[in-house]
């Protein structure tokens, strides 16, 4: 199927699809400018705007379903932005609307959950303002019809992420993590920016509708360069190697933020970028796509390994997020069928990972914000709703038969296997590790001895928090089957990502699937031996070299420090010293030489100068006056 032509605005709800962005943006503006006056009802406004945005997205979706599949690609121009370079406009197609539904749907649930989670925070209103800001920016990112508008959303979500990681900015660790996230993301953004420059100089436009059809006319080298630079941007936003280091620190933010931004939506923006640009710059063969798959596989393994060693429940889940996005990235490097599975996994992951994070938040809420799983244990009876929903999310992520992950992750593994057996088996290995670390989280948190202190009184969270969990758990259970069976999502996405007419059938039972299941079961079993059957020590054992390697995030930070931070600090000091002594010293010296002696200069610097300047002024005034008189005579 060739990518469909872009149609012009058909009116209806699609005509006002910009409301999706405008409503949460308005919410953010009201809450930020209104200040303390809006404290009482600010969180309701925030929720309302997110829900309203979801309603618009749903209406747009249903209007689009009324079109023939080939016509589901509508452009909604908004206004002229930079004349001759880029205008602001939206592209409503199956890909963008899938994202919009995920962002506003899961986003609304997380907004609702946050009413309860943040109820004790005096700055809850500001929190909702930032959440609204995030939703608006993320929607711009996925709905934009050109790279410049996308970039505005792209850095906008970076800002929201910065503000929310550092929400408790009085904690130095939070402030540092926020800054780190922004700066590391900027490294990726640098790549994206250069990619945009190349796109513009090559095609004379940055609009998807103009660039993609002409991609074939550009040289292979140009296309590869654009692809690799886009990938650099994607790596920053999606925490893929080598720009992964910020994501674990980002867990400093309140847990709903980790769920929404650093699990379900923002970190998948890189996958979106690759899939959106796919047909033009990542066709599935060629260098750029190969590098995408390598980055994906490397990150899916690295994230999984990090996940095995973390005692902080949020960091274990963050490692898992890296890993799962690695799967999506791998898929996105495999061409059109891969795109579809990348998006399918992205959507189901959005549900089960938000589910898991909010579950973790619910546990923390009942445990005085304790995050150390060694201080948990046996919580299943005390938090039954949290436990059961978490269990569903857990089974979904490890790929338990017929739950979401089973369909979407296996789809990726099988597609990878057909493409390249090495990639495929590494992805299978990742699934096995996932089985281990996720089981570890469940055993340490909900089973075994109770290991918390006396003054902690674990309790189930209020309904405003558990209901979103229940909805997400339901999604985690059934969404995968719904999207993948009978190729529902593929058929829907087809025109947007250029899928072939002949779609591969998904085999519910396959040899590779069975092998994966066996490995997952082995991982889970090993976790049971270590953390289920045995008592979990409250103080972490020292562990082997490998454990330390995983605990220290595979030495990613150490590497960054040695390669960039320390040399950077030295360079900065050197530059400051040079600027004070070198350049300035030279100039002062020169001035002194010209002025005769340095003593003369110093004298000028103190008293005489004022009269000196005054005399220039007076002289100039007299001169000007004289000329003027002469001139008019």
């Amino acid at each position: 199927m060739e990518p469909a032509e872009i149609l012009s605005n058909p009116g209806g709800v699609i005509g006002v699809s910009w409301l999706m962005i405008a409503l949460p943006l308005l919410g953010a503006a009201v809450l930020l400018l209104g200040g303390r006056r809006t404290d009482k009802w600010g969180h309701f406004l925030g929720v309302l705007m997110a829900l309203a945005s979801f309603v618009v997205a749903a209406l747009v979706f249903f209007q689009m379903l009324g079109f023939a599949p080939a016509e589901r690609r509508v452009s909604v121009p908004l206004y002229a932005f930079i004349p001759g370079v880029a205008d602001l406009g939206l592209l409503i197609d199956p890909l963008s609307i899938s994202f919009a539904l995920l962002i506003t749907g899961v986003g609304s649930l997380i907004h609702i959950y946050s009413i309860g989670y943040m109820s004790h925070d005096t700055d809850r209103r500001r929190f909702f303002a930032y959440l609204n800001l995030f939703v608006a920016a993320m929607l711009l990112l996925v709905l934009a019809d050109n790279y410049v508008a996308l970039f505005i959303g792209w850095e906008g979500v970076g800002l929201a992420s910065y503000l929310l990681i550092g929400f408790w900015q009085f904690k130095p660790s939070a402030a540092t993590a926020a800054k780190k996230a922004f700066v590391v993301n900027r490294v990726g953004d640098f790549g994206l920016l250069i990619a945009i420059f190349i796109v513009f100089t090559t095609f004379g436009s940055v609009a998807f509708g103009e660039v993609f059809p002409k991609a074939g006319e550009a040289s292979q080298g140009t296309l590869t360069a654009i692809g690799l630079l886009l990938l650099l941007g994607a790596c920053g936003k999606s925490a893929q190697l080598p720009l992964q280091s910020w994501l674990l620190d980002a867990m400093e933010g309140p847990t709903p933020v980790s769920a929404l931004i650093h699990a379900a939506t923002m970190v998948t923006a890189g996958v979106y970028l690759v899939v959106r640009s796919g047909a033009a710059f990542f066709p599935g063969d060629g260098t750029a796509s190969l590098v995408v798959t390598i980055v994906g596989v490397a990150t899916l393994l690295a994230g999984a390994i990090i996940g095995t060693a973390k005692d902080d429940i949020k960091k274990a889940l963050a490692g898992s997020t890296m890993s799962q996005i690695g799967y999506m990235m791998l898929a996105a490097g495999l061409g059109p069928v891969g795109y579809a599975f990348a998006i399918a996994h992205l959507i189901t992951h959005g549900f089960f990972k938000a589910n898991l994070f909010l579950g973790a938040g619910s546990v923390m809420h009942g445990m005085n914000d304790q995050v150390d799983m060694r201080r948990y244990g046996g919580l299943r009876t005390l938090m039954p709703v949290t436990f059961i929903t978490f269990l569903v999310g857990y089974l979904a992520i490890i790929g338990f038969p017929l739950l979401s992950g089973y369909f979407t992750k296996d789809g990726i593994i099988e597609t990878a296997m057909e493409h390249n057996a090495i990639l495929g088996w590494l992805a299978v290995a990742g699934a096995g590790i996932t089985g281990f670390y996720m089981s570890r989280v469940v055993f340490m948190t909900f089973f075994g001895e109770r290991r918390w202190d006396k003054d902690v009184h674990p309790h189930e969270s209020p309904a405003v928090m558990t209901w979103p969990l229940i909805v997400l758990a339901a999604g985690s259970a059934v969404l995968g089957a719904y999207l993948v069976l009978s190729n529902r999502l593929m058929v829907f996405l087809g025109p947007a990502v250029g899928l072939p007419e002949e779609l591969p059938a998904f085999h519910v039972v396959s040899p590779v699937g069975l092998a994966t299941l066996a490995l997952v079961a082995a991982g889970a079993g090993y976790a049971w031996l270590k953390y289920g059957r045995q008592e979990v020590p409250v103080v972490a054992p020292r562990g082997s070299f490998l454990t330390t390697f995983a605990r220290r995030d595979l030495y990613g930070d150490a590497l960054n420090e040695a390669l960039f931070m320390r040399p950077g600090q030295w360079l900065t000091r050197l530059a400051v010293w040079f600027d004070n002594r070198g350049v300035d010293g030279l100039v002062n010296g020169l001035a002194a030489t010209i002025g005769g002696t340095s003593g003369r200069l110093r004298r000028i610097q103190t008293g005489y100068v004022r009269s000196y300047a005054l005399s220039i002024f007076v002289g100039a005034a007299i001169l000007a006056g004289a000329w003027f008189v002469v001139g008019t005579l």
Partner: protein
Amino acid sequence: MPWLSILMGVSVLGALGVAFVKDDRLAKQATLAVSLVVLALTVVMTVQFSPNGDRFQFVETYDWIPAFGVHYGVAVDGVALVLILLSAVLVPIVVLASWHDAEAGKRSVRTYFSLLLVLEAMMIGVFAATDIFLFYVFFEAMLIPMYFMIGSYGGAQRSYAAVKFLLYSLFGGLLMLVAVIALYVIAGKGTFMFPELIGAIKDPTTQKWLFLGFFIAFAIKAPLWPFHTWLPDAAAQAPAGAAVLLVGVLDKVGTYGMLRFCLELFPEASKWATPVVIALSVIGIVYGAIVAIGQTDIKRLIAYTSISHFGFIAMGVFAMTSNGASGATLYMVNHGFSTGALFLIAGFLIYRRGSHFIEDYGGVQKVAPVLAGAFLVAGLSGLSLPGLNSFVSEFMVLLGTYERYAVPAVIAATGVVLAALYILWMYQRTMNGPTAESVRSMPDLNIRERWVVAPLLVLIIVLGLFPKPLLDVINPSVKETLTNVSVTHPAPAVAKEGQ
């Protein structure tokens, strides 16, 4: 209507009036009123400007010294217009921000405000001058009010800073004077009028020498690396309001001069010098950013970020593409607003705590959230966050440069990463973390200060989302300039359909 003369006249008359008002409070109010009148008149004038009409509009030409062909010639094109608009917007904001700045010492309060209005007249004059000799007179005369504002009302090192500023500028001005006179003599047209001198110098060697005379003066003014060392001293010692006008407007005369005079009068020499200028610009972008990261003094830090930004502007001018030059012009305006906001808010912060040093702050966000929020928005504009004003201009400059010089553009784009570091690290050290004991009782922005900050933040956001009105004014003039330089625009590798 002689709009430009009226603008200058109102400012000068206002300055005289203020100088003779006995009551300080009344003097301040009068200054504010005059600057607001000038702003209102400038807005009315801007509305009447037709972007696609004649290049120069509101033309006034009178003989001044007929013997030498010197004219009182003023007019504006789109580029000059937006810079005058920038000046007219900033002055009332600076007046309101400087309300108590002149009171610290035993200096005369009304003189300070009178100097502000004198400076405003000169800022309008320097951008409006179409006679090169008149431009030179304003270029030099502008130094004087600024010299006194730094030297008399500045910080502890004010004398050193003021003299350094003056000596650098005078040196550059002297070179320019020689070049101006030589231009007059060699062109042999018997006039200093800029439009008549376009294309007058044909000989390449002569062009090169005259170019250097102008360019060095402008490079010191802007300042470009390595002529920059006067700026951190001057900006750090100047009162916050004067620093805003110094960095926000006066320095732009340098980059404006490059675009207007260097490119159009000496097109061949400009092309000859381009590799060097681009190199200096790129060095300045990266170097300014790195040195900014290492600063311990808030105002010096902002000054170094400006050196980095001036590198972007000069690079955009000399890229000689429409995106580069239009972006550079827009950058001049945007940088005035964003750095203006940064300097003024930093000034409010310093006024409260009495220290320039970053390490003396910490956790201000908790006690003064409005101040911190405003500082963050200004800072985000400084790091060119998309959606805010600076992004548009920085993007255009980088894109415009990339179209012709890919490698320098890529190196310059690393400045985007460094900007995130210097801004957010400064913000973290001053505003985040546990609240320092010394700032615990710090009051948030008062009503007057909010009125100072609000228009700047509004402009930062509005120009970030809707840059088109300004670009529509700038683009035709830039196009005219580039036509006079006779450069061909690089075409996309894959041509658009139907072309």
